[in-house]
């Protein structure tokens, strides 16, 4: 089972890199959908089959892999913008930064005080790497939709960490957290729509009237 979960986690890290390097928004959203699907498998792989893990896996699959990507795809279809052009930081530098952050996370995790079973497992480094990759995407892109994708990846990192602590998060709370995310993305989608209608762009760089 360890091999399977490590395989999934490695794929998750690869997807982080893919989103950092691509300029096509549709591809970016698809990648995040696949990442969500992979994450939904993790509770089953890590804790075995039980009612709790089955419901959690199903709910995560529904929200992270199906509903949120559908919402985002619909949004970019409505605003008719398909590419991230001229990001704040170029694609190659962001990829390099992403590599730096990921290797940093893997090295850092070695120094963390962990319980015996988690030593050498990929869960914690992957969680940290995914978290910071999402943050990086959020900071370096201009398009509102890519920033939302960054937020999703960041939340995915937290979700991976949360799988290790499933006793702490009762199903009700976990479900509520995912539902909050779904509604949050829904509202963000509406705002993106309004941004493109008012400014005829999705670049948040245009949102600069409010400052001191």
């Amino acid at each position: 089972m360890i091999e399977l979960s490590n395989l999934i986690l490695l794929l998750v890290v690869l997807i982080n890199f893919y989103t950092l390097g691509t300029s096509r928004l549709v591809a970016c959203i698809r990648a995040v959908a696949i990442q969500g699907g992979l994450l939904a498998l993790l509770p089953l792989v890590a804790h075995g089959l039980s009612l709790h893990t089955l419901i959690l896996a199903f709910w995560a699959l529904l929200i992270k892999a199906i509903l949120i990507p559908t919402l985002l795809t619909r949004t970019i279809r409505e605003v008719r913008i398909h590419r991230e052009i001229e990001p704040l930081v170029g694609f190659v530098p962001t990829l390099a930064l992403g590599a730096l952050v990921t290797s940093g996370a893997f090295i850092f995790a070695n120094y963390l005080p962990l319980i015996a079973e988690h030593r050498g497992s990929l869960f914690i480094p992957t969680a940290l790497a995914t978290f910071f990759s999402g943050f990086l995407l959020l900071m370096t892109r201009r398009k509102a939709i890519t920033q939302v994708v960054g937020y999703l990846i960041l939340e995915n990192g937290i979700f991976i960490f949360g799988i290790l602590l499933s006793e702490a998060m009762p199903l009700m709370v976990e479900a509520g957290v995912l539902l909050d995310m779904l509604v949050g993305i829904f509202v963000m989608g509406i705002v993106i729509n309004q941004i493109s209608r008012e400014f005829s762009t999705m670049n948040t760089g245009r949102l600069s009237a409010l400052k001191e």
Partner: protein
Amino acid sequence: MLLFLVLFPLLLGALAFMLPSERWRCWLLPLAGTLHLGGVTSIACHPLPVGDLWLGLDPLSLLVLLVTSILYFACSIYAVSYLQLRSDRGTRTIVACLLIFLSAMTLATAARHLGLLWMAVEATTIASAPLIYYNRNRLSIEATWKYLLICSVGIALALLGMLFLAYAALLGGVEVTLQFDHLLAESSFLSTAWLRAGFVFLLVGFGTKMGLAPLHSWKPDAYGEAPGMIGALLAGGLTSVSFLAILRALQIMNAAGLGDLARQQLLALGVLSLLIAAIFMVRQNDVKRMLAYSSVEHMGILAIGIGIGGIATFGALLHLVNNALTKGCMFLSVGNIHRAFASKKITDIHGAMRRLPISGTIFLAGFFAVTGSPPFGPFISEFTILRGIFAGGHFWLAGAFLLLLAIVFIGMGSTVLGMVQGTPDESTDTAFKDTFLLVAPPLLLLLLVLLLGLYLPPPLRHLLEEAVVMLEVK
């Protein structure tokens, strides 16, 4: 009873969505506000036992809930006339979101499980985003987007911080839980490394939501573009709820023997907030943005009070009450002035006292209250915090505290006096006049602030003292 307080605003919110009549829909707000205040008061008179796994009120959360409920009540009365003034906007979204917002704030204060607390705070972000977007123009889109993204990311950091607390329990070999009372009971076993990291993330996360500098960048925009009534609820209610979440983290740090570390961090953010607010408040050209910086200032004062500890803790909790009521009074009266001059730029507003005798006077009195002048409540609480700073021997800090408060007083004073004095420019005239329902709520809040400055009712003092005990190092 508590569950009822969380659920009935949700039901009313659903009703608001379905009700076809624009006219009757806004009356759901005073109904909810009154029921909520009644329910909270009855709980305050006959405290329920804490110890429920999910929901419960201890003195600290009761204090926050009581303040929020009073503020919401005042805003809900104000809302009826306000929404009729702006009937072209439609009321469906705003009324429904305001009701959901009340439910989420109640849940956040009553939650005994940190995961549930997180969920509720995130729900307040989502429910308040459409409220900030109410004016539907370019500036309000920008403000909403910043608010939504910055607060969502901030809150995500807080979630990671909570998971760190759970990992601290896992490493400590005790029950892995996020149930607050259990976590508090086993706090001496928690792994300190993870606990420290968790507190930093929680402080940054909920500090973003509360608007402590340097995490406040969304605040002037959101408060500036939202209607005055929404500004009142955010600056008075939501900030107090987020502060409660930080206090929960502090309780755990205290119990684990790391209280001093946590207090130092709070103190640092508090001083920085006060400094940033003082800098940006001087020569601020937009009255609502000025109030937003005033909110950053008062969040800083709260953090300093808790950071100092001792008698200042009492001052900080009293200040939480004063700040919520004063901010409510200020934002509601500024909302009226904004309507009457159709502008919130101070270059356009002169002679508010002549055009709006009552709102203008409330605004002026509110300015004296918010800057900590006697005989209003904030004077007492700020003075108590100052006494705490001196008692702790931090003389430099006390000097800086007084200096920054003086700068704020002068900066804000020149703006406010320019607005209320003089003769109004004829070209800015609008049909807006003070009406009873638009001035009674801010007046009520002002009178409460005045009362708290002159006399602290024994039940409230008792509640504050009980809450202080919870925050002290045992």
